[in-house]
Structure formats: C-alpha cells, structure tokens
C-alpha cells in the first residue's frame, strides 16, 4: 500500500510539472486529421516556417476524423477551439471562423486566387471575409480497374463515347465481373455527398424555388430507385451501405482488384498511388451522364483560422506562408491534392510522383471542373448540406435492406431535413 502511494506522489508531482513551458514564442495550434501523408508534408513546411520565424511555433494536433465532425463543433460552440483547424463542414462552422482580412498584408491575393471558394466558408450574407484556404479541392468521380476490363475483353465505355450513362457503366461492370468472377461490379462510397453527383446528373434539383432543400423530385427518385435496384441485383457492393455507421469506402476491394468500377473522388489518387502503384491499371473516368448533366460534386477540406484565437496576426502570418504559390504548390505536389488556387491552376502543378497512372487520374479530375453543374456548386456552398447528405445516406440504407419502401425513404429524408432545419431557425 505504502509503495503504491509513494508511486502516486511521484506521479502527481510529474503531472503538476506537465504544463511547464517556455513562453517566449507564440504557440499556435492546428486541429488536423490525416488521410495520407498530408500531415507529414505540412509539418515539414511548417518546420521551414518556424526556422524563419523564431517567434512563432505551430503545433499540429492530429485527431480522428470523427473528432473533426463531432467534437470540434462542440469545442467551437463552447469557445474552446484551437487557433486553426482543418474542416470539411465548411459552411456549417463558418460562424466560428476568423476573418483574417485586417491582418493580411495582401488580401487582394486571396480574392484573386481563391475567389470562388472563399464563399464556401462564409455564413450566408457575408461576401467579404477571408477565413482560410482549401487544403484540397476535391471532385467526386469514378475510378475503373482498366486491367480487369481488358482481361474480361469488355470495351471501356468511356473509350467509345464522351457521354456514358450510368446504365451503360453498370452493364459493362457487370459483364466484367461475370467474365472474371470477381465479387463486386460496382461500389459507391457510403456518403450522401457521393450520391449527390449522380442524382444531379439524373435531374435532381436539390433546392426548390425558395432555395429550401428538397429531394422530392423525379430526378432524385430515379437515381435512388436505380441505386436500390443495383443493390438488390448484386451490381453494387452489398455490404458497404447496409453495414456501416457513417462514412465507409471500398479502397480495399478496389486495391485488391475485386472491384471494376468505384465511385469515389479525386482525393483517392494519393491512396491508390501508395496502395496499388502500378500493380494494375487504375484510371479515373469522367462522371457518367444523365438528363441533368455529367456532374460530380465539388468539395474539399479547408484550413481556417478560428475566431477565438488570441493571436490573429500570427495566424495570418502562418496562413500567408502556407498559401504563397510556391509553398501551396509544393504541398499539392507532394500530397497529390488538387489545389483551388488560380495561379496554380494556370501554371499547373508538377505532381511529385513517377506514376503516370496517378498523373493521368489527376488530370482527368482537373479536366472535369468545367462539367460541374450549377446545382452541384450550389449544393456544395449550402451550409447545411451535410444535413441533407446524412439523411440521404441513412434513409436510403433503410430502403436497401427493405425496412422502408423507396417512397417512404424519400419522404423520411425530406422530413429529417425539415425537422433539423426547423430547430436551426426556431
């Protein structure tokens, strides 16, 4: 007993000595999450910054992505946020962002280079604040395993036509799977965001005349019905949607060459370069077409300043460093993240990879920016879009397993969206 207590006393002394830190530099903290190597690249870039700016030190707090979605909003609401954070709920958290305009040496640079994307990070009605920049611009879109198509002797539909429909892709993928006896013709990330691109292509409007979110239209229903049927007839990966909570992906299946067609997005290029390399020919293909267009959905993550920071000037200095064309270009090149920066779009990024497959895939995605429809941009800019996406994801899942009919599911989506919105305004 006494020995345990002795240990305890020592430990308490240790614990009380924990916060002892030298305070001659300003310490900034970034709440961050990782998908791949971006945390290491950022650390490397910041080390250089710190060497040139000895009065600032930047700490990266890497947390699980779920903590960015669930815990960060609570912290922000309670005024316990970090100095900067990497967020994906761009509009939903906009009320907590720092407007860096007064601290930036050249705000015009930001307007010029990040112009259209600043809007995603602003509360409705605000058209001038500069809260941060996109660490990556993403576009949803499909990948195919070209090697499988070749081995199966099935023509790749996008080789023959510029506008392939979803049905054509489904038929080709099923043919590949049957010929090679691979388990999954198609898969789509478990995410309402991924579903939205195809839905818009099929004609879904997502907003009514008043600008209120709606899923009660023919276009949405058509895509939803197709999607449910694909699960029933085995075209789609049977487990991903029904058997998960929140987001799920099919990286493993795709990397394992068990999947012919995979609806994901540009962020996956880095992963595939690592995990697949040139083990087979993986390829990004243009988003399939329908009556509503051939669109994916834009999106991405942003690094933003948080309004409660005690060091807004230093935050702005770090941000200016990270957004300078050279540094941002290097960040993009090394992470294989597409950048939302006008200067870089013009000069192009020299991707830091030897893998031709990766370069090709990235240029397919970059080339698709022009095909994104207005609805897709509006939906991405809508601050409660995650509310719509999550309801879509969860209710469609219930329709897939037969707990709800399709029409019930669509009604429930609308109902969930409306109920939550009523609480926001009420």
């Amino acid at each position, binding site marked *: 007993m006494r020995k345990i207590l002795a240990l305890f006393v020592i*430990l308490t002394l240790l614990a009380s000595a924990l916060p002892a830190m030298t305070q001659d530099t300003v310490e900034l903290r970034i709440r961050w999450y*990782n998908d791949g190597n971006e945390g290491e690249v950022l650390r490397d870039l910041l080390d250089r910054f710190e060497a040139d700016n000895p009065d600032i030190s930047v*700490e*990266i707090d*890497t947390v699980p*992505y779920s903590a960015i979605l669930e815990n960060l909003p609570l912290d922000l609401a309670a005024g316990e946020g970090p100095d900067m954070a990497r967020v994906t709920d761009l509009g939903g958290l906009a009320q907590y962002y720092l407007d860096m305009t007064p601290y930036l040496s050249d705000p015009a640079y930001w307007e010029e280079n990040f112009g259209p994307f600043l809007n995603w990070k602003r509360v409705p009605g605000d058209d001038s604040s500069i809260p941060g920049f996109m660490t990556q611009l993403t576009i949803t879109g499909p990948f195919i395993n070209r090697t499988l198509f*070749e081995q199966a002797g099935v023509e790749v539909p996008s080789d023959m036509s510029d506008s392939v429909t979803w049905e054509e892709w489904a038929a080709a993928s099923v043919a590949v799977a049957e010929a090679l006896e691979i388990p999954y013709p198609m898969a789509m990330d478990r995410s309402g965001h991924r579903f939205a691109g195809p839905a818009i292509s099929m004609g879904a409007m997502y907003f009514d005349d008043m600008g209120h979110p709606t899923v009660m239209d023919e276009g949405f229903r058509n895509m939803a019905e197709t999607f449910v049927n694909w699960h029933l007839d085995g075209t789609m990966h049977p487990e991903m949607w029904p058997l998960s909570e929140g987001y799920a*992906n099919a990286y493993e299946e795709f990397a394992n060459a068990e999947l012919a067609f995979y609806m994901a997005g540009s962020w996956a290029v880095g992963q595939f370069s690592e995990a697949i390399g040139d083990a087979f020919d993986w390829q990004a293909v243009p988003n399939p077409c329908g009556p509503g267009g051939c669109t994916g959905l834009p999106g991405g993550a942003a690094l933003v300043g948080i309004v409660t920071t005690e060091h807004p000037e230093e935050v702005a200095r770090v941000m200016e460093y990270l957004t300078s064309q050279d540094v941002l270009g290097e960040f993009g090149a090394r992470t294989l993240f597409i950048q939302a920066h006008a200067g870089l779009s013009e000069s192009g990024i020299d991707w830091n990879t030897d893998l031709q497959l990766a370069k090709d895939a990235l240029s397919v995605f970059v080339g698709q920016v022009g095909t994104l429809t207005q609805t897709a941009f509006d939906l991405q800019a809508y601050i409660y879009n995650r509310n719509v996406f999550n309801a879509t994801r969860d209710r469609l899942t219930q329709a897939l397993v037969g707990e709800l009919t399709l029409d019930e599911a669509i009604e429930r989506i609308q109902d969930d969206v409306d109920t939550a919105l009523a609480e926001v305004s009420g």
Partner: protein
Amino acid sequence: MQADKISLGQFLSLRSGGKRVNTADALTYLYLTIGTILMFGPVLWLVASSFKTQAGLLKYPPPLLPYQQVQVEVEGYDDPLPLFNVTMEDGSARELAQVRRVGIEAQMVDPADPGAERIKVNISQREPVEEVKLAWENYLDPLIEIDYFDFITYLKNSVLVTSIATVITLIINSMAAFALSKYRFKGRDAIFVLFISTLMIPITVILVPVFLVITSIGWKNNLWGVIIPGAATPTGIFLLRQYMLTIPDELLDAARIDGGSEWHIYWRIILPLARPALAVLAIFSVMWRWNDFLWPLIVLSQNDYFTLQVGLNAFQGELQIQWHYVLAMTVVTLLPITLVFAFLQRFITTGIATTGMK
C-alpha cells in the same frame, strides 16, 4: 486457502458418482477447450495479423502466418525487385524478378542473368514468391517514424491517467464505503441509493452536460478533466461497502477505546482488511481507465495530452483507416494491461469470493 478447501470438498462430492466422473470430466475439458479456442483464438489472430503488411492483410483466404513477397537485388537496378514464379509458354516454371508492369503484361528479368533480354509475361502467368517475414515496420513506424503519433507522450499520459485515477478512486471510494457501512448518520441510505442508481446511466447519454461542466471549470485539455469525473464509481462503492459490512464492528470499538481517531481506524484497520476488495477494484479501475476512449476524446484535443487510445484513433482519417498501424498499436496497448492482469489476477477470484457479492 479457504477457497481451495471448498473446491476440494466439492470435488469430492462430485466424485461420488464413480464411473460417471470420467464422462463429466471429459465434457468439462471439451467445453473448456472449445471455450479457450473461442475466447483466446481471436486475440491470437489479432497479434498474428499485426505482423502482416498492408498488402498481406488483404489476402484471402487469410494466411495464418505473415507472408511477404521476396525482394531480390539485381545487378543494374537500384532498388530490389519483387520475385515471381512464372509459368512460361512452354509450360516450364522459372523464378523471375519483375522490372515493371504495363497493363496485363509484366517485364521480367532473370536475377541470375540480368544482362539477358527482358522477358514479357502475361500477369496471370506469375505468382509472387513469398516468405514468412514479420512486418516490424507496423510497430516501428508509429513508434519512431511517424511524427504525429507521439508514442512516448501518449504512453506517459495513459500511465499518469490510469495510475492517478486508480489511486484516487481507491481512496475516495473506500472512504465513502467506510462511511456508508460503519456509521449511522442522517441521509446515509439516501446517499447510498443515489450512488447506486447512477450505476445505470451510461456516460454516453450525458456527454454534452458533462462537457459543459468540464469547460466551465477550465479542465478542457487538462488530464484532471479525464481523471476526476469518473473517480466516484458506484460499482466501487457497492463492492467495497459489501465487503466492509463483513468486518466486525468490535474491531473498530476496540481501536476507539485505545484512543484511535476515526481517520486512524480507516487508515490502519479498515484499509488493510479490505485489501482483497481493493485489489479487485484496482483491476477494474485500471481496465476502465486504460481503455477509456469516448470521454478522453472529448476532454483532450491537443497532442501533448492525448492518451494512447485517443492517439491510436488518429490513424482513422476521413477516407482511409491504416489498418496495419491500428492493429500493431492495439497490440502495444494490450501489453501493459495484460501485465497488470497477470500480476493481479490471483487477487481477482479471492477478492470477489470474499467481497460478499451475494
């Protein structure tokens, strides 16, 4: 001691059936063996899997042992090349190293004769040559290389939280249990019922209010914010109180006659006598604290204060879970608790057996 005697007696009573014993014994061992495979097999599987490479984890059917593809140094090439077993067109088999792959065609070279012309092979005609090799990098990368996983800091925090919390829990719970079992004062029963009824409310459902309390105290990103809220465990009080009820009051009275203060009685008489029950609570407390995840994740958001469980989950990004690291680090977090258990496990049964949990 007593426990052994009892089981011996029971054993004798079960022996009374003569021949029946063998069947019963056989059934017992059969049950225990199947149980052992079911209970411990998955854990061993976890440990074995943690030594597989990222690619190895994807194999099906999953191999028991961690295989890796053999890499060979070939003259004229900077990096080692992967080795394959190739079935040639004439049906013969050769061992070749792959230079690169284009589509469904692989360009191979004979490691023994690197100067010769490259051999083109259809990729379905080759099988990787594999050897059993432990992927230690699953362990070493997070421990050394990856700078966003600061293992030493997380370990220190986990040890601090677990040990301080356990000591505090033991002290305040035993004090409360002492009061609730050995004193008569107004409101005693009410307090006891209050404590016990909270056994039922999982923290999951009151996360937001507790979070508010923590931030208003200023314990956000403070280890005390993780340690203190869970210290008043109803289970601990229940366990200790039941045990202390069995300590005869005469011992206390005798000490009082000798002029011992109440604190003296608690410290010198009750605590030593309650040691088995304290050991049980210690194991449970260590277990709860070491594995706790949901609550620390809410209180802690800065790397310097992360516990292992929180740090471990940083391997789960938006888009990908790095399984090979998750598995390896899971095994690492299992080690300390396994050691604590191995050390304290002899107390568990005697402890519970004598806590009067009936």
